[in-house]
């Protein structure tokens, strides 16, 4: 008895990829500033950049999780 597979390919809208790219670049930017602010001996700036980085990371993760099957 042969098995039947169904491959479902969903094409995401182009703007969704652009938004993910912007999110990723923003993360790079914020992470660089977080690391470099530590090197600049600017503790408050470094802390704030780390907070922004993790908030953005979690926000991205939540959005991805909610949209993974859509």
């Amino acid at each position: 008895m042969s098995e039947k597979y169904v491959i479902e390919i969903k094409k995401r809208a182009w703007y969704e990829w652009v938004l993910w790219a912007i999110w990723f670049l923003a993360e790079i930017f914020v992470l660089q500033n977080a690391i470099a602010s530590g090197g600049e001996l600017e503790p408050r700036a470094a802390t704030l950049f780390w907070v922004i980085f993790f908030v953005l990371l979690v926000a991205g993760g939540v959005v991805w999780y909610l949209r993974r099957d859509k």
Partner: protein
Amino acid sequence: MAENKKKRLNRREFLRISGLGLGGAALATTAAAPAKSSQKFQGGKFSDPAGRPNRPWWVKTVDEPTTEVDWSKVARYDERFGTVRGPGFAGYVGEDEVDRLSAAAKELTLKGMLEDIDGYTLKDQALKSAHVGYGRSFMGPQRADTPEERGVPKWEGSPEEAARIIRAAMRHFGAATVGFVEMNEDNKKLTYAVDPDGKELVFTDDEMASEDDNYRYIPNKCKYVIAFTVQMSTETMRRSPTPLGSQTTTLTYRRSETIQASLQEFLRGLGYQCLSSSSTNAMAIAPAWGVLAGLGEMSRLNRMITPEFGPMVRAFVAYTDLPVATDKPIDAGIMEFCKRCKKCAEACPSESLSFLDEPTWETVGGWNNPGHKAYFEDASTCRAYWREGVATNCGICFAVCPFSKKDKAWIHEFIKASSATAPFLDGFFRSMDDAFGYGVQASAEEWWNLDLPEYGIDSNQPVMEG
């Protein structure tokens, strides 16, 4: 089906995680990128024939400086009326007040050492008084062999070549940035009429510069102006207003003495004259020459702010008869930012800095030189605070300035570029500067635990690459 779906999901997850991993690796690399690129820059060749730095696109060269100047109203200043030196200051506040302020400064200095006040301890005072300089002279040490003494003709080259080798030499001596201006009948007025020691500065048609007991003679042929900056330590200045914080200023002046003497001897060795300050801040208004040479813009501090190092520099000047390729003023949005920021004026303990929205032609006192539209400061209250309030140089205005940043975090370049192109964002940037804790005074005691680079400055911080 559910199992297949699960497998497909895992692969996507894997790809995403891989992507993030690669991104993370890239981030780790890019976080250190500025230092690497500056090292590469410092080892690279000048891309401009005159050795001009390739500044970023948002630092524009302009025909006129962002500070309006009415040359007909500019007069050669008698530097004895400045407030930095004793007699000038006493002229404004009176001898009795100077004595009272000096006694207060002495008392505070003693109290700081006896009670171990942060930044005023014996080791801080010892550091401040430790800087020994080379000394300054109008015509230089005159010790280097001239081409004549070596039996060779003097150095000849194009103005571009001359500018390039002077830049290369001066960077080597320790200057941060170097620019050139050709003197004319207008800007010649930036030369003091009288030096701080009372000697009159006179332009002559003599071939060679000279000086006697009453005069310093500047040959008209020495019409090429070399303006240069020497970097101060941002990290040290953050300890202002304390003797520890202010000693970076002292150190920079001492370093500049060596740079000045080296420049004078270098040009003598090439067969040319080089005239400069006979004492600290003598001969000419160096920041004004710096602005004309494109090293920076005037600011609310009524000092020059550079795109590279903000206000964390001291400006110096020399005149030579070696023809050099000249530079133009710049517009990097600094003066515009100052109009909206006012952080320095708010932080000034003696309220000596201007809160006006726009610069003005009206001077505050005799320590200001009229003829340019600026944010004139009250130097008498500033100097009084130096003595009575902190018993040392202050420097808070330099420390809190949003342009006083190191160059590691990308955000600083992003904001400088944005401010230069979209001034309406300046107020927001100022608020963010506060929110992110920039310019907050740091502990002086902590400074002694820092492993800072030589002179406390980042000498790898480049003159910006475009």
